[in-house]
């Protein structure tokens, strides 16, 4: 669930707010590897940091702008410390 009952989502969205990124939670319309991770009990978020980019996956002339790509590195460089520093959760031991 994408509410405060999911601490990973809480942390993910907090970092995005700090970076002034606007994010919109959605249900994926296709199947990806995340379904196997979730089925194995691992909560997962699907996120590719590409805004201002036409959706061209599987299409001709698929491209990504290098500035968008580089900003994605900045975004992960903020997300990873937050997620990898998540304190122990109640179901962890």
């Amino acid at each position, binding site marked *: *669930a994408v509410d405060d009952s999911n601490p990973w*989502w809480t942390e993910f969205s907090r970092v*995005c707010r700090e970076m002034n*990124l*606007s*994010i919109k*939670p*959605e*249900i994926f*319309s296709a*199947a*990806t*590897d*995340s*379904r*196997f*991770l*979730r*089925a*194995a009990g*691992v909560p*997962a*978020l*699907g*996120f*590719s*940091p*590409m*805004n*201002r*980019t*036409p*959706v*061209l*996956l599987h299409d*001709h*002339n*698929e*491209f*990504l*702008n*290098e*500035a968008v*790509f*580089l900003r*994605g*590195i900045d*975004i*992960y*460089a903020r997300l*990873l*410390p937050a*997620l*990898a*520093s*998540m304190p*122990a*959760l109640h179901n*962890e*031991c």
Partner: protein
Amino acid sequence: RRQLSEGEHPGVTLFRQYLRIRTVQPEPKYDEAVLFLEKIAKDLGLECQKVEVAPGRVVTILTWQGTDPSLRSLVLNSHTDVVPVFEEHWNHDPFEAFKDTQGNIYARGAQDMKCVGIQYLEAVRRLKAEGKCFPRTIHLTFVPDEETGGHQGMELFVKRPEFQALRAGFALDEGLASPTETFTVFYSERSPWWLHVTSSGN
């Protein structure tokens, strides 16, 4: 020392090198991708583990150990394969990673999802260079065969003891591009559900 294109960010150069590896279905050159990832692991000082889940289908796991092994890990997943191309419809060779004057990089896999794999690696590179370390271990998993349903990739990997040993607590995986300023984040997905309907007429 990484090979640099004139004036180009080294992360972009690495991205374009990865795009030139023809991991295109139906016969992806996975061996080249694995070699490429092993080299990066060495360069970044990450542990590298290979798990062959099916013949010729190797999951490559790059690991940055955390400081508290009692905590579950963060998994950064990406797939290495890409869908086929109809080359005649492309303005540039889809495996050349041509960059135009606006900085647009054209290639099969530019969005889905070689960008993400390299962004994970470049973020780790930056954080390590800054001397950071974190309580939770970070695993970067590079899996084959997502584009054909994951049956020779992630579907098998999650059943392996090597996957259990990662002790994954949370994962990031691919999303989609967004044409607006807003980024989309997917928290669930529709299950594939093929319905076979037989109509016997009247």
